[in-house]
C-alpha cells in the first residue's frame, strides 16, 4: 500500500463526534415496565401500549436469526437502554426553539436546518436519537394534504391512520429484530400522501445515533393512497464509538391503487475501525406492500457503513400489475460484514420485479447477497429479472451470492444472473496510463460498476453516494 493510501485509510471517521446534551433515558434493561415507561414518556394511547406489549411477548419467545453470513459476539439485550430523548423545555415551535447544540450537530453533518428551504426543495425531518426535534415544510405539504411528521406526532394527531397501517406490512412477530423494534420503537417518520397527490418534493429524514449505549429503534411508515406519488430519502451518519451499537429499525410502505413510492437510502453508519472494533449493528426490516393494482415500490440503497448489515428490503406484490424494484450497492471494507438483499413476493397477476445488486468487497470485508423471488400460484404472467454482480478488491475479502427462486406458476418467467470479478490490471493500467492516480482510477471503475444503481438515486443523493463509495474504498488498492 502506498503511503498516501495508508494515510487515507487511517483517516478517522469524518462524522465521528459526540454531541453533549442532557438526556432523558430509561434505565438499562428490557421488561414490561420499560415498555410502559417508553409509552408513557411519549404519551401514547392505550392501544399502542397494548400493541407494544404484544410485540414484547412475541419477542421473548423468539431467538436471534442465525442463518445470515455474519458473525458477532452475543448481544446482551438487557444491558442496553431503550429510550433516550434530548431534554427540552417544550416542543419546538420553530427552528429558533431548537437546542443550538443540536443545530450545530446538523451543521457538521451538512444539513444546516436554517438553510433547509434553500436545500433544493428537500424537507428534512431530523431525528436526533429518539425524538424528532424539528419538521419543516409542513405548511407547504399541509396545503396538499400530505402528512409528514414524526411518528410520535402521527400517533397523537393521526391515530386512526397509524392504527390502520402499523404492523400491516411487517407484523409484530415478523422476525426477532422487528419484534424488538415493535416493542420499544422510539420514534421515526410518518408519511401519508392523499389520493391523487404527487408529493412535490423529496421527503428526507436524517437519522443520527447519539447517546452511547442507546440502541436506536426507528419506526417509519409511508402510505401512498390511490394514485399518489412520493419519493422518500433516508440518510444516516453516526458518531464514532468504541462499543457496538444496535440499530433495529422497521420501515413499512403501503402503496394503494396506482400509487408509487420511491424509497432511497444512503447508509453510512460508523463501520468500526480497521480492526473491526466498534461500529453499528444494522439489523433492519424494510418491506413495502404494493397493495393496490398498478402500484409501484422502488427501493434504492447505498450501504457503505455499519460493522454488520442485516437488511432485506422487500416488496409484496399483491395488486395486479404491480411493480417492485430493488437497486442496491453494498460496500464492505476492513472487517465489515454485510448480508443484504431483497424479497420479491409475487401474489397478483402480471406483477413485475427487477433486482439489481452490486456488492463490493475490499480489505477483509464479507459481502453476501441474499435474495428471494417467489411466484405464487395466482401470479399469472409475472416476471422477474435479477442481476447480482460482485467486485472483489484484495485477497482477504469475500463475496457471496445466495439467491432463492421459488416458482409456483408456469406462465411466469424468472431470470437470475450473477457474476463475480475483480478490478482487472488492464482496467487499472488503462486509467493509470492516462494520468489518473490509483485512488481516482479505483473510484472511477467502482462508480462505473455501480452506475446502474446510482442512476436510480435522486440527484443530490447520487452525488453524495459517489463520494461515499470513493471514501469507503480508500486505501483498498495499492
Amino acid at each position, binding site marked *: 500500500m502506498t503511503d498516501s493510501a495508508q494515510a487515507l485509510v487511517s483517516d478517522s471517521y469524518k462524522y465521528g463526534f459526540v454531541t453533549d446534551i442532557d438526556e432523558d433515558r430509561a434505565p438499562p434493561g428490557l421488561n414490561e415496565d420499560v415498555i410502559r415507561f417508553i409509552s408513557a414518556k411519549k404519551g401514547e394511547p392505550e392501544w399502542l401500549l397494548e400493541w407494544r406489549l404484544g410485540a414484547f411477548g412475541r419477542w421473548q419467545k423468539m431467538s436471534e436469526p442465525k442463518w445470515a453470513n455474519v458473525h458477532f459476539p452475543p448481544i446482551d439485550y438487557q444491558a442496553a437502554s431503550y429510550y433516550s430523548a434530548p431534554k427540552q423545555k417544550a416542543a419546538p415551535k420553530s427552528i429558533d426553539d431548537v437546542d443550538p447544540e443540536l443545530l450545530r450537530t446538523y451543521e457538521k453533518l451538512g444539513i444546516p436546518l436554517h438553510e433547509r428551504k434553500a436545500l433544493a426543495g428537500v424537507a428534512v425531518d431530523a431525528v436526533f436519537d429518539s425524538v424528532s426535534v424539528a419538521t419543516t415544510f409542513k405548511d407547504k405539504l399541509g396545503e396538499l394534504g400530505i402528512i409528514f411528521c414524526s411518528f410520535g406526532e402521527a400517533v397523537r394527531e393521526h391515530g386512526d391512520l397509524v392504527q390502520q397501517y402499523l404492523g400491516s406490512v411487517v407484523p409484530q412477530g415478523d422476525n426477532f429484530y422487528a419484534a424488538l423494534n415493535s416493542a420499544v420503537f422510539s420514534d421515526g417518520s410518518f408519511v401519508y400522501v392523499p389520493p391523487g397527490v404527487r408529493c412535490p418534493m423529496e421527503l428526507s429524514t436524517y437519522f443520527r445515533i447519539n447517546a452511547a449505549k442507546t440502541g436506536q429503534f426507528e419506526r417509519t411508515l409511508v402510505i401512498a393512497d390511490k394514485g399518489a406519488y412520493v419519493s422518500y430519502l433516508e440518510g444516516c451518519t453516526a458518531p464514532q464509538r468504541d462499543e457496538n451499537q444496535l440499530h433495529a429499525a422497521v420501515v413499512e410502505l403501503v402503496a394503494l391503487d396506482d400509487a408509487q413510492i420511491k424509497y432511497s437510502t444512503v447508509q453510512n453508519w460508523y463501520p468500526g475501525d480497521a480492526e473491526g472494533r466498534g461500529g453499528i449493528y444494522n439489523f433492519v426490516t424494510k418491506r413495502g406492500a404494493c397493495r393496490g393494482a398498478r402500484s409501484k415500490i422502488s427501493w434504492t440503497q447505498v450501504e457503505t457503513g455499519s460493522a454488520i448489515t442485516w437488511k432485506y428490503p422487500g416488496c409484496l406484490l399483491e395488486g395486479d400489475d404491480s411493480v417492485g424494484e430493488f437497486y442496491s450497492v453494498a460496500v464492505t471494507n476492513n472487517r465489515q460484514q454485510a448480508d443484504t438483499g431483497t424479497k420479491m413476493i409475487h401474489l397478483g397477476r402480471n406483477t413485475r420485479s427487477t433486482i439489481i445488486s452490486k456488492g463490493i468487497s475490499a480489505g477483509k470485508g464479507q459481502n453476501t447477497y441474499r435474495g428471494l423471488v417467489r411466484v405464487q400460484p395466482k401470479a399469472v404472467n409475472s416476471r422477474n429479472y435479477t442481476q447480482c454482480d460482485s467486485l472483489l478488491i484484495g485477497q482477504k475479502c469475500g463475496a457471496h451470492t445466495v439467491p432463492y427462486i421459488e416458482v409456483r406458476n408456469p406462465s411466469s418467467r*424468472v431470470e437470475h444472473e450473477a457474476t463475480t470479478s475483480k478490478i482487472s490490471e488492464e482496467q487499472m493500467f488503462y486509467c493509470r496510463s492516462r494520468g489518473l492516480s490509483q485512488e481516482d482510477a479505483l473510484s472511477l471503475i467502482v462508480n462505473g460498476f455501480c452506475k446502474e444503481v446510482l442512476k436510480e438515486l435522486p440527484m443530490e443523493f447520487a452525488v453524495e453516494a459517489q463520494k461515499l463509495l470513493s471514501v469507503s474504498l480508500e486505501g483498498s488498492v495499492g
Partner: protein
Amino acid sequence: MAVKTEAAPYLDVFRPNAGEPAWLRDARAKARDAFVARGFPSRRDEAWRFTNLRPLADKPFEPGHGKLELKPGSLPKGAWFASMARTLIEKPEIARRAIGESDLAGGQPFASLNAAMFADGFVLALDEGVTLDPPVEIVHSAGDGSINLRNLIVLAPSSRATIVERYCGEGAYWTNTVTTVSVGAGASLTHVKVQDEGPEAIHFGMVRAALEPAATYRNFGLTLGANLSRQDVQVAHGIGSIVDLAGAYLQRGDQDTTNAVVVDHAAPGATTRELFKGVLDKRSHGAFLGTIRVREGAQKTDAKQTSRALLLSDRASVDTKPELEILADDVKCAHGAAVGDLDKDTLFYLRARGIGIDEARRMLIEAFVLEAFETVEQPELRGHLAARVRVWLEAA
C-alpha cells in the same frame, strides 16, 4: 445415547456382520451412532429445505433386496470391476476407501445410515495409465424394503474410464446409494447415472468426488423415476482440475426431485461447468441447490453454473438456489438461473409449419433438455440417453 424417533426402526434392524473385518464393524457402529443421534434432516436444514421427506418418514423400511448386475465388457489388465461384497474379501485395502470420515462424524445422515447398513455396491479401480473402453455398466433393480449400496470408483493417475449406473425397480422401496470417487492426477472419469426407479420408489444418491491435479471429472445424471428422489454431488477440486456437472430431470404426476451440488475450489486454477435442466409437469416439484465455493488462495478459478427449468402445468413448481461463496479475488464466477414455460412464439413458428401442438411441444422440450447431455462425450451413449427421454415425452 439419544435416538431420534424416525431413526429408531433402523437401529433395530442393525446387525453387524460377524464375518466382516474389524475396521468395518467399527466404522458401521460409529456411523450408526451418528445417524441415530442426528435422525432425518428437516426442512429447517438449509440443504433440505426444498425436499419433503414425509414419504420416507411415514413408514420405516425393512431391509430389502435388490439385484446388482455388473456389465464389465472386456476388462483390460490393471482394471478391477467387481461387487463391493467381493472387493471386501479379495481387496479390502481398496474397499476401505469407500468409507469416509464424514460418514462416521455425522455428515449427511443418509450417508451415515448407508455406511452402517450397506450390504453391497460396486467397485471400479484402475491402475495408472489404464484406459477402459468401452464404458462399463452397472444395473440395479430393486423390489422391496431399503437397499443401501456403497460404491467406489478409484482412478489412478492418467487412467480413463466411463461408467454408467442405471437404477430401476418395481414396488415401494428405498434405494440409498453412496459413491466415493477419486480421480488421480491427469486421469479422466465420465460418470453417468440414469435414475429410472419405479413410480412408488424413493431414491437417494450421493456422490463424493475428490480430484487430484489436472484430473477431469464429468458427471451426468438423468432423473426420470421414483416418487421422491435426491441427488447429492459433492466435488473437491485439485490444482487445475476440470469438473463438468450436468443433470436433466423430467418429472410428472406428484414426483419430487432435488439436485444438490457442491463444488469446492480449494486449489487454484480449476474449472467448473454446471448445467441443470428441469422439466416439470402435472403436480411435480423440482429443486436445484448449487453451491460453488472458492476458498482463499484458489486463484484463477473459473466457474460457471446454470440452472433452467420449464414448468408445464399450473400445479408444477420449482425451487432454485444457485449459491456462490467466494473468498479469492482473481476468479471468474458466474451463475444463471431461469424458470419459465415454453416460448409461445417458437411454438407458433412450429405450428405454422404444420407441426401439431403435441409434437411441437415435445420437440421444444427435447431440445431444451438435450443441451445438458453434452457432458457425455460418447455419441452412442448420448444417443441412447436421448432415446430414453423421447420415451418419457411420448408417455405423456
